[in-house]
């Protein structure tokens, strides 16, 4: 990771204090961070322009959203903007700089620490309702609800992306991909039909994705012949996700935002991870966004690359 012209928290002060100092010392004109929500868990991305606005600043266990994509717009405004980047967000940031989607000179990247973010949906999925407050108690969470106190393991309700954090030794991020690869073709088909038929085409995965920054998406272009707003049949349910995954192939940093925002909890990251796994196996390990200059695997080639029939020979049942 390149560290030139970046803010790093050397003195280990709180993130809120860092944010304050940056605005106070005029190192940036604006600061992109998170703003306290209505409840304790619904923090929103926000731009802070002065110290009094920072009263609403928050950095806690519910700041999972990746701020780098907002910079596509924000870095084109006047003045310098500081942006808080968790370790995983840095990859998206680098990738966007590499693709010239962020105007680097207008941004002050600030690297902040993260111990893993919580997923309120996962907590709800455990059947915990009427959540009022959460306190971290070692590996356990004490949850105060309208229906009395509950507990759950912190590990069980981490955001998907935090389970295999790139900056920590974590589990095997391709574990589920391998499981699906091991299924028969029919099983794989059934699996994805069941998942993708939940899709409501809200476009949240596309709009949140730091790799999806086309000025005009092919799915919004009436002349493309595929700009259908709703999934009117099973083909369209698949088509949208296939094209989207493929379009970010080699550029996807595996930030996991698509899965985080999907209102239907479709494990969209599995498609991206499958592609990443293939790229690694065919063309050597590559992490998009590791730096902001190297060429991605689909924009270069080797003379002795594998032939496409390798797909026929490997993985899965027939």
């Amino acid at each position, binding site marked *: 990771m390149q560290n030139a012209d970046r803010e790093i928290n050397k003195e280990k002060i709180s993130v809120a204090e860092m944010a304050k100092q940056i605005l106070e010392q005029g190192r940036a004109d604006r600061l992109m961070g998170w703003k306290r929500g209505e409840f304790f868990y619904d923090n929103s991305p926000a731009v802070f322009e002065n110290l009094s606005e920072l009263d609403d600043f928050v950095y806690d266990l519910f700041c999972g959203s990746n701020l780098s994509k907002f910079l596509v717009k924000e870095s084109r405004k006047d003045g310098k903007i500081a942006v808080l980047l968790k370790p995983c967000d840095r990859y998206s940031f680098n990738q966007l700089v590499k693709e010239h989607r962020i105007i680097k000179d207008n941004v002050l990247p600030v690297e902040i620490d993260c111990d893993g973010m919580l997923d309120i949906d996962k907590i709800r999925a455990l059947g915990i309702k009427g959540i009022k407050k959460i306190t971290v108690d070692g590996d356990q969470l004490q949850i105060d609800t309208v229906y009395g106190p509950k507990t759950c393991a912190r590990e069980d309700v981490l955001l998907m992306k935090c389970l295999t954090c790139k900056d920590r030794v974590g589990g095997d991020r391709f574990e589920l991909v391998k499981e699906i690869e091991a299924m028969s073709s029919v099983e*794989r*088909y059934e699996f994805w039909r069941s998942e993708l038929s939940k899709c409501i085409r809200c476009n949240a995965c596309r709009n949140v994705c730091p790799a999806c920054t086309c000025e005009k998406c092919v799915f919004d272009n009436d002349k493309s012949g595929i700009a259908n707003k709703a999934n009117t*049949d099973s083909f369209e349910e*698949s*088509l949208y996700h296939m094209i989207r995954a493929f379009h970010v192939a080699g550029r996807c940093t595996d930030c996991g935002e698509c899965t985080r925002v999907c209102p239907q909890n479709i494990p969209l990251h599995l498609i991206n991870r499958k592609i990443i796994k293939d790229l690694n196996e065919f063309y050597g390990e590559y992490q998009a966004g590791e730096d902001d200059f190297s060429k991605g695997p689909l924009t270069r080639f080797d003379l002795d690359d594998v032939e496409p029939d390798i797909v026929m020979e490997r993985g899965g049942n027939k």
Partner: protein
Amino acid sequence: MSIENKEFKPLIVAFCCNWCSYAGADLAGTSRLAYPAEIKIIRVPCSCRVNPMFVLRAFQRGADGVIIAGCHPGDCHYTTGNYYARRRMTLLFSMLDFFGIEKERTRVDWVSAAEGVKFSTVMNDFSKKIHELGENRRLGDLRCKMPIEK
């Protein structure tokens, strides 16, 4: 629909590079080598021109198999186009396989302008595979297959 009762007539789309494979098809034709009529050739300037969208579009409109034919690696008219196509298609086909689409429905082959015989063999072979697989039901738009009626 009672497709089983009807004889299966596949529709196969072949994207052929203008400089090699399309000329290969020509040569196959002038050499009176047979290849199946169900193969619809779409001429593209280079195998690299084939956007993954084209492949999916072909399946959407009812293709049972899609084959991309380009110059042999090293022989690209534009020097490097087919190398990129090779990476791209490998990845695409692997992804389609991951979605549970039969992997035999997609193929890439390199056919030069001098290989009329190879063109005919590849196409016959691919068509045979598709015949064995039967109709593509996993990746096609039903609306394109059914007539519009009241």
